[in-house]
């Protein structure tokens, strides 16, 4: 298998979002990951974006109030097969 071609910071940053979203195909992903291993500045940027993304993803869960849980249980109980 051939070595990934080296890419510059500008290209790595352009592709960073798609890397973190797991939307790059294998070859391009390896090129960007290789750049991040070699470039401290881009690595820091990637870590920042990754952590921010994690914080945003944590907003996808919400505490369920007892009243709403009761409502849902009643709703589920009303379903007929």
């Amino acid at each position, binding site marked *: 298998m051939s070595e990934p071609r080296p890419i510059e910071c500008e290209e790595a940053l352009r592709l960073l*979002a*798609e890397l973190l*979203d*797991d*939307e790059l195909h294998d070859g391009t992903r390896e090129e960007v990951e290789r750049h991040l291993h070699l470039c401290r500045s881009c690595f*820091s*940027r990637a*870590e*920042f*974006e990754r*952590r*921010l*993304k994690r*914080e*945003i*993803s*944590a*907003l*996808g*869960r*919400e*505490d*369920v109030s007892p009243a*709403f*849980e009761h*409502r*849902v*249980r009643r*709703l*589920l109980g009303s*379903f007929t*097969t």
Partner: protein
Amino acid sequence: MDATTADRAWFEHAVLDLLPELLGTARRLARNREDAEDLAAEAISRAWLHRASLRERERFAGWMLRILSNLYLSGRRAEASRPQETALEDEIEFSLFERLHQPFLLWWGTPEQEFLDRLLREDLIRAIEALPDPFRIVVVLADVRGFSYGEVAAVLEVPVGTVRSRLARGRALLQKALWEHACDAGLRSDTARANREHA
């Protein structure tokens, strides 16, 4: 227990297990608790009616969350697929990381870590809620919910390229809002003070 009773028990258990995610997604889409609870309840009813379309039970969470997202969008597709023509184009390059690395903001540690350590859930929620709808919906589906670009495109009925560009703009606007909030909350003065103390 017959098959129907077992199916029903399984459905109830699956819904109750997923309730925090369902409500969280509904809340980020609908913005307020009452509408979010109505949306989640309606999605559960719809899922029960269409349960035969769930082919693999392991995929229940994605299936259920797609039903909820589709339900929210059903009356809004035209609006959601038509971004407002504002100056949003100008903001696409905004990077919070770069702002935090401006020379006058060099403080004692790594500024981006410091920023994230201070970031509150409420700050993020406020910033997401302030996004114009077409961008907010894409950010919620991709970043809050973790849908792939293809899944977001299918829910919104727009091309994947539109999802990609709208997500980039939505994230840029989100980061800009976080930056502005941090400035309003005194990030600049804290930093200036820290720089003086460590000079």
